[in-house]
C-alpha cells in the first residue's frame, strides 16, 4: 500500500469561476468609469467622486455595525438610526462645550475637540446599546417579527427621549476651522472634511478586517456567525459576545452620527432614521452580515448618489433603489452572501 500513495489533487477552478467570485470588486471602478463618461468634465468628476467616496465611507461606518450585528445574532436593529442621532447629539454637546477649541486655527486643537466628541459619543451610544440589548432585543432573540416591531418601538422611544433631553429644535454647529474650505487638486475642489471622512472610513475598514481576521475575539465572532450553537457548546459565553458586539455596533453608529452631523452641520432627532434608508440599501446590496459587501455597497451608493445628484438631481435616491434591484437580480442574496452552517 505504501508505494501507491494517493496524492490529493487540488483542482484549480476555471477562470470564469474566479472572475465570477471576484466580480463585485470591479463594480466600484466600473461605476467610476461610467460616471466619468456620463459627466464628461474631469474636474467635476473628481469633485463628485471625492464627495461620493466620503459619503460612502460615512454610510459604511453606520452600516458596518448593523451588518455585523445581523451576521452574529440574526437581529436587524430597526432602531439603529436612533443611535446615529444619539451619537450626533452627544458629540455636538461636547463640541458645543469646546467652542474655543473649534474656533482656534490650530489643527491640533480642532482634531482634539473632534476626537473628544467622537469618544464621548461612542461611550454614550455604547452604553445606550447595553440598555437597548438588555431591555428590548434580548427577550425576542430568534423571533423576527417581534424583533422588527420592538426595535421600531425602541426607535420611537429613543427619538422622543432625545427630544426630552436636548429639546425639540435642531442644533446647528459649524465645522472646526481646520476642516472648512477645500483643497484644489488638478483643478477640482475637494472639501477638506471629505478627505478626513475618507481617511477615517478606510482606517475603520482596515481595523475591522484586522480584528475579525487576526484576533481571538474576531475568530469567535466569525465562528459565531457560522454556527453560534457550536461556539456555545465549546464553552464560550455567546451571550456576552452578543452583548459586546451589539455595544460595538451601536458605538459605530454613534461615530457615524458625529461624522454625518459634522458633514451636514445640522442635526435633528430624525436624522438617523433618514440616513438609515441608505444604510439599509447598502446592507441589502452587500449581503446581510458581510463587512466586505457592506463596504463595496456603501461606495457604490455614495458614488451613484453623487453622480445622479449632479446629472438628474430628482432621481438621486431612486437611482440607489434601482441599483439595489439590479444587484438583487444578479445576486439575490447580495454581493457577498454570508454562509451559515445551518
Amino acid at each position, binding site marked *: 500500500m505504501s508505494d501507491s500513495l494517493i496524492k490529493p489533487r487540488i483542482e484549480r477552478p476555471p477562470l470564469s469561476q474566479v472572475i465570477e467570485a471576484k466580480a463585485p470588486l470591479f463594480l466600484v471602478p466600473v461605476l467610476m468609469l461610467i460616471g466619468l463618461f456620463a459627466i464628461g468634465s474631469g474636474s467635476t468628476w473628481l469633485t463628485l467622486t471625492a464627495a461620493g467616496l466620503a459619503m460612502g465611507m460615512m454610510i459604511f461606518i453606520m452600516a458596518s455595525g448593523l451588518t455585523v450585528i445581523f451576521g452574529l445574532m440574526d437581529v*436587524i436593529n430597526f432602531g439603529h438610526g436612533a443611535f446615529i442621532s444619539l451619537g450626533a447629539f452627544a458629540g455636538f454637546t461636547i463640541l458645543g462645550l469646546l467652542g474655543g477649541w473649534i474656533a482656534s486655527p490650530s489643527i491640533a486643537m480642532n482634531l482634539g475637540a473632534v476626537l473628544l466628541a467622537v469618544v464621548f459619543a461612542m461611550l454614550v451610544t455604547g452604553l445606550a446599546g447595553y440598555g437597548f440589548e438588555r431591555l428590548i432585543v434580548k427577550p425576542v432573540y430568534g423571533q*423576527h417579527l417581534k424583533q422588527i416591531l420592538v426595535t421600531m418601538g425602541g426607535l420611537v422611544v429613543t427619538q422622543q427621549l432625545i427630544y426630552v433631553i436636548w429639546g425639540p429644535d435642531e442644533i446647528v454647529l459649524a465645522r472646526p476651522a481646520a476642516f472648512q474650505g477645500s483643497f484644489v487638486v488638478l483643478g477640482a475642489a475637494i472639501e477638506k472634511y471629505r478627505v478626513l471622512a475618507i481617511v477615517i472610513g478606510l482606517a475603520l475598514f482596515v481595523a475591522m478586517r484586522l480584528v475579525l481576521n487576526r484576533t481571538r475575539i474576531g475568530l469567535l465572532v466569525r465562528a459565531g456567525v457560522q454556527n453560534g450553537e457550536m461556539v456555545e457548546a465549546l464553552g464560550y459565553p455567546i451571550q456576552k459576545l452578543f452583548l459586546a458586539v451589539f455595544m460595538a455596533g451601536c458605538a459605530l453608529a454613534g461615530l457615524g452620527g458625529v461624522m454625518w452631523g459634522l458633514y451636514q452641520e445640522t442635526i435633528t432627532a430624525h436624522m438617523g432614521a433618514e440616513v438609515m434608508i441608505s444604510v439599509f440599501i447598502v446592507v441589502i446590496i452587500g449581503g446581510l452580515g458581510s463587512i466586505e459587501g457592506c463596504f463595496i455597497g456603501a461606495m457604490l451608493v455614495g458614488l451613484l448618489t453623487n453622480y445622479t445628484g449632479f446629472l438628474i438631481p430628482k432621481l438621486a435616491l431612486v437611482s440607489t433603489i434601482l441599483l439595489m434591484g439590479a444587484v438583487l437580480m444578479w445576486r439575490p442574496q447580495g454581493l457577498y452572501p454570508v454562509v451559515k452552517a445551518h
Partner: protein
Amino acid sequence: MIVKLLSGDTPRSKMLSAVLLLILFGLLFAPFLFPGTRPLDTAARICIFIVLVASYDLLLGYTGVVSFAHTMFFGIGAYGTALALVNMGPSYSAIALGTVCGALVAGAFAFVIALFSLRVKAIFFAMMTLAVASAFLVLISQLSGFTGGEDGLTYRIPREMTPAFKLVNEKVLGVRINGKLITYYAVFFSSLCLFLILLRMVNSPFGRVLQAIRENAFRAEAIGYKVVRYRSVATILSAVMAALAGSLMAIWLRYTGPATTLSMDIMVDILLMVVIGGMGSMYGAVIGAVLFLLTQSYLQNLLGFLQESLGNLPIISEVVSPERWLLWLGILFICSIYWFPKGITGRLRGT
C-alpha cells in the same frame, strides 16, 4: 343576519361587543353627538384609519409579513383621486376614475415588490419596503410640477359634497344638513363596507390559509399551499384596500400632500395602532385606531394638565410635556409586544 354580516367572526366577548357598539354608534351619530368641525374631522379620520389599519393587519396580523410600504399605497390612492380631481375638474366620474386607477397602480406596485422580496426572510422584506417607500416619498416631494411637491395638491370636489350645499334649510337636532355631512356619511359607509369586506376576506378559506402560513409557513407549504403566491395575493389585496382608504382621505380633506399621506410618521402610527389594538383580529384595528386618534387629540390635554400640576421639576416636567405623547404610546407599544401580544382586543376577549 348580523352574524352573517360579520362573516361569522363575532366579537366573542361582552366587553368587546359593548366597546365596538359604542364606537359604531359614536361614529354613526358623530355629527349630532359632537357638533363642531374638529370632532367631525376626528370622526372621519377614525373611519378612514380603521380601514387603513385593518388592511395593514391583513398583512401583519394575519399573514405575518412586516411591510413599511403601507403609507406608500395609501398615498398612491390619495394621489390618484387628487390628480383626477385636479385635471378633470370636480366631478363624480373624476373621483371614480381616480379611485380605480389609484387602486390598480397600488396593486401593481405591490405585485412588483412582492415578486422581488417575498421569497426571502421577513427582515429582508421589511428593509426593502422601507427603502422603497422612502424613495417614493422623496420622489413625490420633488416632482413638484406633477404632484405639487411638498405643498401638495388642493382641489375642489363636486358641489353636493361641500359645506356650501344645503340639503335642508332648517337645522335638524341643531345641526346643519349640508354637503360636509353628506361627505361624512359617504366616508362612514364606504369605510364600513370596506371593513366588512376585509372581515369577509380573513374569515374565508383564503384567510385561514394566511393564518396557517403565519403560524408555520413550512407546514403550510408541505400541505400543498403555495406560500409565496398566498403572501403575494395578501400583499396586493392589502395594498388595494390601503389605496381605497387613501381615496377617502383625499375626498375628505380636499387636499393631498406628502405629510398627510406618505410620511413615515403615519407608518409608525399605523404600526402602533395595529399592535396596541391587537394583531390578528380585525376588531383590533378598530380599537387601535380609535384609541390612538383620540389619544393624539386628548392625551395631550391630560399631559398638559399633569405638567402644570407637577410644576417645574427639571426632567419630569419635560417627560410629561404635551408634545411627548408619542413617548408614552411608544412605551405602551413595546410593553404590549412583550406582555399582551394580542393587544387590547385579546385582553377584552380574555385570551
